[in-house]
């Protein structure tokens, strides 16, 4: 098993490469340290700008989800009436 120092070093390395960091069960002290690392990573100039592709993609996902939810809501009263009859 790796030490906390190695785990945090690997976590920081992932942040620096903009990779999804590896997951592990963190001790309370490690939680504090990895949150500090995440905050410092966000301080890199320009690092926290979302891509246009991402913004458009999520917009499309929400569009689909909203349509599904609204369609379900429209069907619900009809199904309710059917079940009563």
């Amino acid at each position, binding site marked *: 098993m790796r030490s906390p120092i190695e785990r*945090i070093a690997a976590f920081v390395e992932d942040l620096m490469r903009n990779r*999804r960091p590896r997951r592990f069960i963190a001790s309370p002290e490690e939680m504090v*340290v990895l949150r500090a690392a995440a905050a410092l990573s966000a301080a*890199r100039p320009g690092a926290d700008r979302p891509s246009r592709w991402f913004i458009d993609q999520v*917009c499309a996902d929400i569009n689909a989800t909203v349509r599904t939810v609204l369609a379900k809501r429209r069907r619900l009263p009809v199904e309710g009436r059917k079940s009563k009859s």
Partner: protein
Amino acid sequence: MLEGALYTDWETIYQANVVKVYRLMFSRVGNRPDAEDLTSEVFVKSLPNLTLPSTVSQVHAYINVAIRSVLADHWRRHYGSPQADVEVDNISRPFDLTPEADESDRAGRILALLPDRSRRILELRFLRGCSIKQAANEMGVSPGNAKVLQYRALRLAAEVGARMLS
């Protein structure tokens, strides 16, 4: 939009808030893949259940609750954190149009308060983008020692950051 104004459709809500939510998520997780997933989760989960029209302040409150919930779940699922409450800036506070200004300013103030070697290792790693080997070379230590310095420096930075917030 002004606090008392009304949102009448979800797309306007999304376009007005997505960058703020993404930046907030990035400031908490520090990497693009997680920030994208968590931002998406906030909107996909919360927007379809909003009753429209709603005031701007109502929508912001709704999104803030979703952010807290999504972040707490992230730390719990992936790192076993039992901490349910997550400190999050309010999304309705005035938005700084200089994207990285807030975080880099705060980071700069924290780094300035650290001992020399702690500040140096964090500057090399986070601000100059040095690998652990490059940082070790710059500081005249072994890569193993650089990892120890980095760990201790992050712990100190967390303490300084907590004191600045309190």
